[in-house]
């Protein structure tokens, strides 16, 4: 049946459904995500300055250990079951920073632990995070390609 030719009963049901449907609190969710995501990023910034102050990292090189540390934190929080609650509360605020990536890897690893290390953990670890890696690498490739072409054509004026 096509989308537009609905029976009168279906149309009536749609109206009824709209009346009783609970509205999603979009603005509230956005505010929650903003503050929780901001807090996670502030912690990341603190970790970054920690590496700058106490180790031999510059602002540019400190990002690598910072990312690793944030993933380590999210590993601990996922293992203790705290990150799930945070994810329920904050939604995208906890999924968009790199800690969300860590959470998706580690939760999959925990879930498939019972199936063994090779076929279970190894095979399923990147079930959720695989697409992040794939499209991350691919989009980085596309951006680098565009940059290279632009520099070749315009003689480095955009560097």
């Amino acid at each position, binding site marked *: 049946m096509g989308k537009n030719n609905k029976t009168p009963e279906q149309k009536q049901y749609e109206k009824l459904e709209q009346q009783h449907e609970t509205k999603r609190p979009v603005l509230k969710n956005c505010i929650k995500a903003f503050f929780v995501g901001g807090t996670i990023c502030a912690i990341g910034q603190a970790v970054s300055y920690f590496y700058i102050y106490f180790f031999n*990292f*510059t*602002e540019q090189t*400190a990002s690598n250990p910072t990312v690793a540390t944030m993933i380590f934190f999210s590993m601990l929080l996922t293992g*203790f*079951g*705290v990150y799930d609650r945070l994810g329920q509360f904050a939604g995208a605020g906890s999924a968009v920073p790199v800690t969300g990536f860590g959470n998706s890897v580690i939760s999959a690893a925990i879930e498939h632990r019972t199936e063994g290390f090779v076929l279970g953990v190894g095979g399923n670890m990147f079930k959720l995070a695989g697409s992040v890696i794939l499209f991350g690498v691919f989009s980085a490739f596309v951006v680098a390609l565009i940059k290279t072409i632009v520099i070749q054509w315009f003689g480095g004026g955009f560097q």
Partner: protein
Amino acid sequence: MEKRLMLFIFSLSVLLFGCSTVNDTPETRSSLVRTSNPNPIAVNNKDEKLVGDIKETALSIDGIYDVAVIKGEAKDCLVAFKVHHLERFRMKKIEKQLTKELQKQFKDLSFTVSSDFKIFLEAVRLNEKVEKENLSKEKKEKRLQEIIKLSREKT
């Protein structure tokens, strides 16, 4: 739930306690947020006026509010600067402008210009060491070369 959180905080604090050995003064520690205005360092005493001029030149550029200068034995000269927070958007431009201006005014020096906070922090730390203990020329030069090498690191 609370026990787990306690365990998390405990393991975190154990990890971080190993790092309390760096003995910075409060001024150095707060150099991230405050203007620390370190004295310019010259490895050779005869360059003292020159480093002062370099610092003045750097401070005259719009947006820069804090500058650390270290002039080495030969041509090397390190200039680390901080910009006002909202000027960070045009930090690269400011860096270019500063390098150009310095090369124009002090033609026979080779400059390493950096907006990286780590480089600034190391310059402040060296300045403090110079003021506290009488560092030899070789030690100052060695530290300067180390900082220059650090500023070139990309990954």
